[in-house]
């Protein structure tokens, strides 16, 4: 009996490992963020439009909001811009832009030409806020709940499908939890 069960068990374990590891739908570059479940790092930065005016995400305490890290150097960010504009039109939550490693004039032109989905767009030229948020690529989109805790992170250009499937249910749950 053992002569049959042991190799069979080993085979099934290996098959399971391969099924999980070689799943073509798995993004092998995506990393689980250690910041999920932790307090969102607070930043105070000038806004893209005006170097003289500063914005801090501390002012959003008690609100559910989305933070979208982008840069004008990032081609996939251009791709998701229409989706972000569409989402902004729904007025579900404020979208905060975090423009990192960028040139201010270029960022201003980007917002003018492609449209501005952001409630505020923070300008982070030396990437300090982005490092605090654990951003390693662009675009990355974070969801913060009413307690100021990061509850979800999505890496890749945003799509309406992802927004409906991953974000909206979490936003509804976060609101219910915060009320």
């Amino acid at each position, binding site marked *: 009996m053992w002569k049959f069960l042991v190799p069979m068990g080993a085979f099934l374990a290996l098959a399971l490992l391969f099924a999980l590891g070689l799943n073509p739908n798995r993004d092998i570059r995506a990393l689980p963020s*250690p910041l999920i479940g932790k307090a969102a790092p607070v930043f105070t930065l000038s806004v893209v439009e005006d170097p003289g005016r500063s914005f801090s995400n501390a002012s959003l305490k008690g609100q559910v909001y989305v933070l979208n890290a982008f840069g004008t150097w990032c081609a996939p960010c251009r791709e998701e811009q229409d989706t972000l504009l569409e989402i902004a039109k729904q007025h579900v939550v404020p979208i905060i832009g975090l423009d990192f490693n960028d040139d201010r004039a270029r960022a201003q032109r980007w917002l003018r030409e492609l449209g501005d989905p952001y409630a505020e767009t923070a300008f982070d030229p030396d990437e300090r806020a982005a490092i*605090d948020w654990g951003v*390693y690529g662009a675009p990355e989109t974070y969801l913060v709940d009413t307690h100021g805790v990061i509850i979800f992170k999505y890496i890749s250009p945003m799509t309406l499908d992802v927004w409906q499937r991953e974000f909206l249910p979490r936003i509804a749950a976060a609101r219910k939890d915060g009320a």
Partner: protein
Amino acid sequence: MRPAILFLCAALCLCTAAAGFAADLDIHGQLVDPVLQARFEAITKQLRCLVCQNESIADSNVQLAGDLRREVREQLLAGRTDAEIFDFMTARYGEFVRFNTPFEGKTLAIWGAPFFLLLLGGVVIYRVTRARSRLPLDDEPAPEPPAIGPR
């Protein structure tokens, strides 16, 4: 009068801050203190660049790696320990940023698996060879079957 003095103070502070930072680096952008520079090189070699995931931030040319090198340099100058700097990075990017996995409770499986497999293989080989050594060699005549019953 007052604003002028304030402005002068601010300018002076900025200048000394800039000079202070510049004095810590030589013309090649290396830390003047050789001990700090050695620690800087050791730490940056052990941190993974998350954009090009098989390069360390010491080797990578992407912007993020450069900014993380700046972060390490500043923290070294601020007197942080190596462990504090690694903690700073793992708090933001996860354990994956470290090329050298620390030996802790949760990494026990990673560190222990090779030794466990080695032991398992040893046991299997031992049992197989023991079983084989009881078989007759090919050029030996098979032992006589014991006689059955009285003849």
